[in-house]
């Protein structure tokens, strides 16, 4: 492969922040026309490296050289790198929800005629670009009216509008369902065949294995190795070994479930959408949870799993219509989150930054936030008890932070998730609902979180896990419900669970025979 010309070479890149060396002596060689994956745990320096490349950190703020298309590049800002054909698509999409697809594609790059925007040309060019990324929509459609998968395509179309030579994708499939992910990966293959070079950052190792030509692995701000997928015969385990620096045995801790009686039951649950009342988001759903059991909920994005969980959790989503909740043989009515907490329910949300944590808080305050009554006497908080509780959970969950006075915003995703878990464990719940508990968390931390979940179940609590990663559900759960369009369509025991039969139930309209 030595005959393939090199498009980009980053040489000995070192980037320091006050007190922290984020990158030290990192090297990256990308050949023209390949898909190059960058792997590493959170905090390994992947995003920083891409920011150096795209000019977010301008020339002069780092050490080392960037050789692009044969000469040294010194980008002063993002515009400079974009002019050179390097376009980065961030994990958080940079689209304006209230504007149309065409307006977004040409934002800051509008085709002009006599100084005014030429909308006719813009729409025509937009259609052309959309065809190239396989997006079939009216260019006048507003961004907020299309799904995340299609939004991602708009971002890529936007990149093409800027005449991209090197496309950088940061976690492109993180928010996508299986079908959209597959479409995106196919698209990348198509680009490759047309000679466009891509760099892809991803946590999803199976995708990387399937699509990448070369993989560069970063760890702790250093380059570990660059693997050639075909020549080196790389598989997922090989990548993981590079990322964590050791062999990782099983992806899931060993666990023998101790399953008891059914103690929690939801019957005939019906909920309507909070704004458009004609939409029913939960259609007569029923499920049970036993003590000591880990119950999974599988479904595509938008199937209504989060909506079900939140509506059960003190009606914190949607408009309750009908249905009963039975706990320990007695019907309970949960009209508010406070009711739900008092009745031993806990809900760990899928988006810990937006709705799970107050990022201004420190670990201590976050840990006790959902049950202040436990550390207060006549309404006055006891600082010592607060500290002791937080410290106990920090040790138990092995949260990596110097002290519990550390701000949660400074923690990595995995450690933030541990703080959220601590917050809900502190409320001493009987039933924990965990919504995407490992999203955006690296491999090592995932393993720990699985261990925590299993320990909670072993304490006799019921645990509900909502996840979009089928291997996770299969590896962790004792029983899995499948959800499709607001209805429960199947119930599969651990022994029978395979990705194939889960997927079948997740996409079928056949309803689970009502019990």
């Amino acid at each position, binding site marked *: 492969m030595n005959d393939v010309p090199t498009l980009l070479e980053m040489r000995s890149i070192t980037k320091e922040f006050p007190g*922290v060396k984020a990158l030290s002596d990192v090297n990256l060689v990308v050949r023209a026309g390949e898909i190059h994956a960058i792997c590493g745990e959170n905090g390994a320096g992947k*995003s920083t490296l891409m920011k150096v490349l795209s000019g977010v950190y301008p020339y002069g703020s780092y050490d080392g050289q960037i050789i692009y298309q044969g000469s040294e590049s010194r980008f002063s800002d993002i515009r400079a790198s974009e002019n050179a054909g390097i376009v980065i698509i961030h994990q958080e999409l940079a689209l304006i929800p209230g504007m149309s697809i065409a307006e977004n594609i040409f934002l800051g790059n509008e085709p002009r005629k006599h100084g005014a925007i030429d909308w006719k040309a813009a729409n025509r060019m937009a259609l052309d670009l959309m065809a190239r990324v396989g997006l079939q929509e009216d260019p006048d459609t507003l961004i907020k009216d299309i799904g995340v998968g299609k939004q991602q395509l708009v971002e890529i179309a936007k990149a093409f509008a800027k005449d991209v030579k090197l496309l950088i994708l940061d976690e492109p499939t993180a928010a996508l369902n299986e079908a959209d992910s597959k479409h995106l990966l196919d698209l990348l293959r198509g680009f490759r065949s047309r000679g466009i070079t891509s760099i892809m950052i991803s946590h999803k190792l199976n995708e990387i294995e399937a699509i990448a030509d070369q993989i560069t692995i970063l760890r702790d701000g250093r380059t570990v190795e660059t693997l050639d997928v075909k020549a080196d015969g790389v598989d997922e385990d090989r990548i993981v070994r590079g990322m964590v620096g050791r062999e990782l045995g099983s992806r899931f801790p060993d666990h023998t479930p101790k399953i008891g009686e059914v103690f929690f039951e939801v019957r005939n649950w019906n909920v309507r959408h909070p704004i458009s009342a004609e939409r029913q988001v939960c259609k007569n759903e029923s499920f049970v949870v036993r003590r000591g059991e880990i119950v999974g909920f599988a479904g595509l994005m938008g199937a209504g799993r989060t909506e079900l969980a939140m509506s059960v959790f003190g009606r914190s989503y949607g408009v309750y219509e009908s249905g009963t909740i039975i706990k320990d043989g007695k019907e309970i009515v949960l009209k508010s989150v406070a009711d739900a907490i008092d009745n031993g329910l806990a809900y760990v949300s899928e988006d810990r930054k937006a709705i799970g944590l*107050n990022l201004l808080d420190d670990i201590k305050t976050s840990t006790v*936030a959902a049950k*202040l009554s436990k550390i207060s006497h006549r309404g006055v908080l006891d600082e010592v008890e607060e500290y002791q509780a937080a410290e106990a959970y920090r040790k138990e969950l092995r949260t990596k932070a110097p002290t519990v006075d550390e701000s949660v915003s400074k923690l*990595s995703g995995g450690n933030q998730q541990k703080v959220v878990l601590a917050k809900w464990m502190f409320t001493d719940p009987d039933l924990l609902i965990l919504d995407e508990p490992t999203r955006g968390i690296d491999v090592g931390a995932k393993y720990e979180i699985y261990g925590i979940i299993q320990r909670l179940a072993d304490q006799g609590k019921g645990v509900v896990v909502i996840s979009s990663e089928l291997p996770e559900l299969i590896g962790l759960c004792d029983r899995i419900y499948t959800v499709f369009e607001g209805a429960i369509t199947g119930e599969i025991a651990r022994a029978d669970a395979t990705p194939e039969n889960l997927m079948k139930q997740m996409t079928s309209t056949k309803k689970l025979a009502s019990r």
Partner: protein
Amino acid sequence: MSRIKDLQKNLFGGTTSNARQFGMIFTLVAIVLIFQIWTNGLTLRSDNLIALFQQNSYILILAIGMLMVIVAGHIDLSVGSVAAFTGILVAKSMTEWDLPWPAAIVFGLAIGAVIGAWQGFWVAYVGVPAFIVTLAGMLLFRGGNQFIGNAQSIPVPEGFRDIGSGFLPEFGPNTGYNNATLLLGLAAAVAVVWRELQARKTRRAMDADPAPMWISVLRMAIMVGVIAFAALRFASGRVGTSFPISGIILLVLVIAYSFYTRNTAGGRHIYAVGGNSRAAELSGVKLKRVNFFVMMNMSVLAALAGMIFVARSAASGPQDGNGWELDAIAAVFIGGAAVAGGIGTISGSIVGGLVMAVLNNGLQLEGVGTDKVQIIKGLVLLLAVAVDVYNKSQGRFSIIGSLMRPFRRDDSVPPASPPDAEREPAKAAVSG
């Protein structure tokens, strides 16, 4: 660790989170120092200190309520109008309906509560943004003031004036000082020593080393010295003057609300709502109740501030409350509160308010005109917040914060394995 480091770490509290407040305190000290020299000692003379407290107590009282409103993520533009509206009604209640003045004060607080409930209802239960509700309130209650008062000034009786212009009484043997003020100072000194001892106990219970004993003693000595000095200062004003009653009201409120916001569940809920309302709601915080409370509380404090101003002015007038909301909001932001909510302290806001007050007073003593004073105050507000924003964007909490950081690291146990904390400070809040 050397003694110097001990001193730096422990004397000023030691964490970065209140670094901003140190910045403001140093600014305050610098301003006081500059004016003390510039005015040849007038700034810290008894009569000026007394006047400073009397002139600003009502703004500082507003700042307490405004801090809570801003921490919860709202704003209240109506405080001046609510104060004026309450002021005119209370003045009328005494001069025309012959209400005795203590009853009139209760009446005034009740008006504040009713107005607060009105505004709180729209903000919390209907969901109209507080900016709009209180902008409406600003017009509504200003108009109400003019409607009721016919834009005239209504005098208030003697007894009532004490809450704005009264002083601690003179009693006991002639010591050459005001005895009541001396007793107040003594009580404060005892409280300070008690608190320091309590704080040491708490530190020990939290497995943290309390500051070395000599630092605690030094700290107590400084504070007791300061209190003693301040008490003597206030007690040695002209006969008939001493620590002002409005200052005592302020002091009580500052202590009570500081305790409430820091040490109670209710107070913590306000920070939770302002920091992330959805997260707070999903943690069982009753969002509506918190929002209703902060808006209502603000109006009650505005009513109190209005009454104190009327009492000090001896009459309620149509200009009352003009521009107060801006002074209160400025104090809160100079004191380190975040525009987006969730961050800020009562003590910080009081310091912020005092910075403005001392600046105002010093410039007036120097005979600088109000036009220039306004320009200077505007620049100070902009600069204070800009420095903070700049420092945050640089990944430092503040200059002083970064100076303190090395000392803070010392007392943390180094993690057993390399920390996997996000390495990019600026990105930390976004990625992961």
